[in-house]
């Protein structure tokens, strides 16, 4: 057994020890293993194996002993080091212990979980809120539970994996429309048979390219077709709309959206997921939604930090303004340097730099890291239409000086790799 444990983390031994017998279930991954090895053999660092040794603030960490600006987190509103948030977590840890060891429907609902749901209801102005253990599970639960075999889920082709997985877990009929195309959605809604329920699934911000959905038009055509509408605001919460509720608030369609899905792992700054709604029968989901019932609830410290953060986000207008300022400046600055960006202007706090291929993308990623800024590298199949990109996400806590430094590092990395002349 000790041998097995010793070799488990050693990629070299992993391939050397490949079993020779027929039917190795891992042989389906051979192409991916080979591609990864070929990439690492060129001497670059593994973009998917980075370790942050120390985290100093929402925007600064130590990576391989070097102080590094974080430009690849989802910490949009910079709440992870907020003193009130941290204090709430410490107090809950002392008062309620380290974990609940139970499901929300058995021994896993504490005072803190109810307070967190109250904070969400207040933030969204809805009658109901349900807290899940992750945002992934919130989508998994909603999609798989409310649409049955006779019902139709109509979703954007670029939907997040958690939406697709929720559809795969349920029994509904799944129809896709071309990304962000109102016409394509409308055409498909018109082709649906008269019988069966309809659920249109949209996202406020699409996380790979940072583009936003034309929600006003999409929600209108969905409602004209008699569909219920869910909007996932994972990357929009905290930042869009007068109250920071998301893109659907800014689009003015709050009264027509039936469900909003969200996460605590982005602007809220911890981990967890939720669905809010005004549907009168919403609470029944607590009994029938398997990803809610058959998993442990969030630790008391996590729901305490989430609730505190959500209450503060409601009044974070100044932070929202600064985050927009940072996003617009980075977008403009990168364009001026000669980079190709995924959106014509800054539509969200995600700025995606498009690059021609994997080799250039990895070399740029590494050059940036060596200069002192961490961004996300993304590649197919996570990205749409076979694109390779460096995804930058800004934080309300990035100072103007840091944004200037980041632009300087992009210029240096672009020249060092030969991408910029």
């Amino acid at each position: 057994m000790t041998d097995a444990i010793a070799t488990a983390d050693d990629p070299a031994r992993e391939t050397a020890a490949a079993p020779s017998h027929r039917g190795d279930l891992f042989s389906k991954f051979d192409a991916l293993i080979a591609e990864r090895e070929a990439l690492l053999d060129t001497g670059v660092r593994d973009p998917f194996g980075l370790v942050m040794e120390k985290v100093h603030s929402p925007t600064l960490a130590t990576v391989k002993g070097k102080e590094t600006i974080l430009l690849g987190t989802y910490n949009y509103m910079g709440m992870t080091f907020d003193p009130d948030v941290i204090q709430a977590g410490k107090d809950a840890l002392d008062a309620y212990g380290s974990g609940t060891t139970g499901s929300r429907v058995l021994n896993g609902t504490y005072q803190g979980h109810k307070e967190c749901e109250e904070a969400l209801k207040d933030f969204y102005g809805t009658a109901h809120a349900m807290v899940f253990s992750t945002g992934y599970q919130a989508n998994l639960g909603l999609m798989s539970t409310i649409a049955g075999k006779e019902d139709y889920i109509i979703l954007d082709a670029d939907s997040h994996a958690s939406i697709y997985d929720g559809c795969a877990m349920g029994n509904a009929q799944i129809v896709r429309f071309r990304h962000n195309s109102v016409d394509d959605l409308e055409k498909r809604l018109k082709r649906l048979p008269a019988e069966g329920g309809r659920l249109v699934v949209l996202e406020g911000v699409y996380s790979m390219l940072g583009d936003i959905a034309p929600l006003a038009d999409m929600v209108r055509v969905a409602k004209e077709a008699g569909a219920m509408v869910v909007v996932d605001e994972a990357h929009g919460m905290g930042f869009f709309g007068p109250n920071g509720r998301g893109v659907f608030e800014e689009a003015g369609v709050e009264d027509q959206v039936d469900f909003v899905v969200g996460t605590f792992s982005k602007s809220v700054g911890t981990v967890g997921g939720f669905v809010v709604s005004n549907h009168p029968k919403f609470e029944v989901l607590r009994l029938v939604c398997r990803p809610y019932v058959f998993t442990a609830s969030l630790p008391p410290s996590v729901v305490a930090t989430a609730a505190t953060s959500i209450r503060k986000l409601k009044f974070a207008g100044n932070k929202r303004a600064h985050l927009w300022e940072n996003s617009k400046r980075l977008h403009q600055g990168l364009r001026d340097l000669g980079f190709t960006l995924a959106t014509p202007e800054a539509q969200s706090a995600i700025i995606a730099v498009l690059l021609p291929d994997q080799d250039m993308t990895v070399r740029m990623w590494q050059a940036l890291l060596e200069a002192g800024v961490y961004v996300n590298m993304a590649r197919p199949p996570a990205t749409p239409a076979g694109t390779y990109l460096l995804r930058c996400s800004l934080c309300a806590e990035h100072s103007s000086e840091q944004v200037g430094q980041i632009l300087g590092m992009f210029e240096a990395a672009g020249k060092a790799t030969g991408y910029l002349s």
Partner: protein
Amino acid sequence: MTDRDQTFDKVAKLIEPFNKKGVKLGETTSFAGDLEWDSLIVMDFVASVEDEFDILITMNMQAEIETVGQLVDAVERLRNEG
């Protein structure tokens, strides 16, 4: 020429822009194996078939369709239902 033949020809025309290797199309030509399409191409292609015939091919149905012949049969069935 039967209705099915006409459908086959229309489907073949829609495959053309995605048939980069110029694979010769027959009833048993498979999308994953012969045409080597990935999920992104499939999405684009399915949308174009749906629009050409004014039908919906759900992802549930797509999972059962592996060859050109099976797709033509599915299109015929869906058109007759509609």
